[in-house]
């Protein structure tokens, strides 16, 4: 990592503003406005501050998500690399389990492949074969991304600092082996009320979702925080992301992997029983 352009208190302040935005749902202006020239390494330092705090508070890190894996999104943000964020135990929801709206921040959904590792990826110089050997099984996944930056007005440093715009995730429950999958040409469709709202294919994720996993594994090995057996890795989207609203039910199907369903709770205001106010 390069040396920081900012002193520690400036990065800590940025981390704090992101935390407050998450707690209050008062989303903030892009960090690049208050920290002009904020670079990728400093953005990861901000991310790390908040993730370390979560660990200190007793949350468990269950894996990582990979973001910015589509050429379209990379072009939009003017970058040529993906990014990553940490996944924690309380971000995971079961298929069909209502995801509380209050936990989400300007949510959008993406269909992805989830990989679970069966062994550590801690070799110094990793290759694709190491990744293939290390993956225990794959599951279909819906990632519910979110942004603490108002209106998703993000550039790469904003999203990296914001834990790669992570929010929550829902996994399917039938593990599949790599040998049974065509990860490059697997079709993807997300449906809402029976209508396809996003379609895609495995190739949309860095040419093959395993390319994304290899990128992450190398990156984490460099950072001396290698991926470990049991870790969950969300590959990055197989197609365009879609906005969701309270009460939505989204089903994602990935060819060969089956389907997974994300159910969104009503917003708190919608849940209030109007009769209660008259009593």
């Amino acid at each position: 990592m390069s040396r920081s352009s900012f002193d520690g208190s400036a990065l800590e302040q940025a981390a704090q503003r992101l935390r407050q935005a998450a707690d209050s749902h008062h989303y903030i202006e892009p960090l690049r406005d208050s920290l002009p020239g904020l670079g990728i390494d400093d953005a990861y330092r901000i991310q790390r501050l908040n993730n370390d705090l979560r660990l200190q508070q007793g949350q468990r890190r269950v894996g990582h998500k990979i973001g910015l894996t589509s050429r379209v999104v990379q072009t939009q943000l003017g970058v040529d690399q993906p990014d990553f964020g940490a996944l924690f135990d309380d971000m995971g929801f079961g298929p069909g389990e209502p995801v509380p709206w209050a936990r989400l921040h300007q949510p959008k959904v993406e269909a992805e492949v989830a990989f679970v590792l069966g062994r550590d990826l801690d070799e110094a110089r990793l290759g694709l074969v190491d990744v293939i050997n290390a993956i225990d099984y794959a599951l279909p996944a819906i990632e519910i991304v979110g942004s603490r930056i108002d209106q998703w007005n993000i550039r790469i440093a904003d999203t990296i600092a914001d834990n790669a715009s992570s929010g929550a995730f829902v996994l399917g429950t039938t593990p599949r082996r790599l040998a049974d999958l065509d990860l490059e040409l697997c079709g993807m469709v997300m449906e809402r009320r029976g209508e396809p709202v996003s379609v895609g294919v495995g190739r949309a994720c860095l040419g093959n979702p395993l390319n994304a996993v290899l990128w992450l594994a190398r990156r984490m090995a460099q950072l001396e925080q290698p991926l470990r057996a049991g870790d969950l890795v969300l590959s990055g989207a197989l197609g365009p992301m879609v906005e969701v609203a309270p009460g939505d039910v989204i089903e994602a199907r990935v060819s060969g992997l089956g389907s997974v369903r994300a159910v969104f709770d009503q917003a708190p205001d919608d849940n209030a029983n109007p009769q209660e106010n008259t009593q």
Partner: protein
Amino acid sequence: MTRIDDIATRLDEAAFSARAMAQIDPDGKLPLADAYEIQRRSVARRLARGERPVGIKMGFTSRAKMIQMGVDDVIWGRLTSGMQVDDGGTLDLSRFIHPRVEPELAFVLKRPLSGHVSPAQALAAVEAVAPALEIIDSRYQDFKFSLSDVIADNASSSGFVVGPWADPRTDLANLGMVMSFDGVDQELGSSAALLGHPLRALAAAARVAEEAGEPLPAGAIVMAGAATSAQWLRPGIHVQLEVERLGRVGFHVGA
């Protein structure tokens, strides 16, 4: 009727000479039945020149496209032998005005098909399915048209390429599709974009064929509609579509 004949002639001549023409109904006032009659007469001129009818193509098979065009149903056009380009062959660009290409699936029938049928009944009439590329080329200036314009213009049909035929008794609901130019991905999608399932597009073809009084015979090809946006063709490129489990189809564009 002379107006309908006149428009049919002008559309056919625009296609034959590869020269764009003005829209015939920019405000979309022409009844759609008249637009389909123009299409029928225009294609009849091709048949009179010796081309054979080989099937139909479906258009507006994605909800996004229907919303964009302000319609709630598919449109369709007629395919003729003169539009067929060999898999692996070369496309002569001089035949077109401003051609675009889109990734599709094609069905070939083993039994006649028409009327209101379920997707399962439609499948029972299918001999095989294949990855396919459709070359669309509006005869209107700037590729701009109203709904009646595009129907009269044979739903922009101008060319199609069908890949190797495969057993249709495979799950067609969500096949990944990648269209590339010279090996570089252009459009990425899934067969789920076709009305949610390609067999729904086939069932729609059966319905419109009956409505037109032209039931689809055994051997007819049905192009089931585009799975993604269309891309402009450029001289000299190689166009390829890969479809999960079904394989690939491609063609070269002449310089």
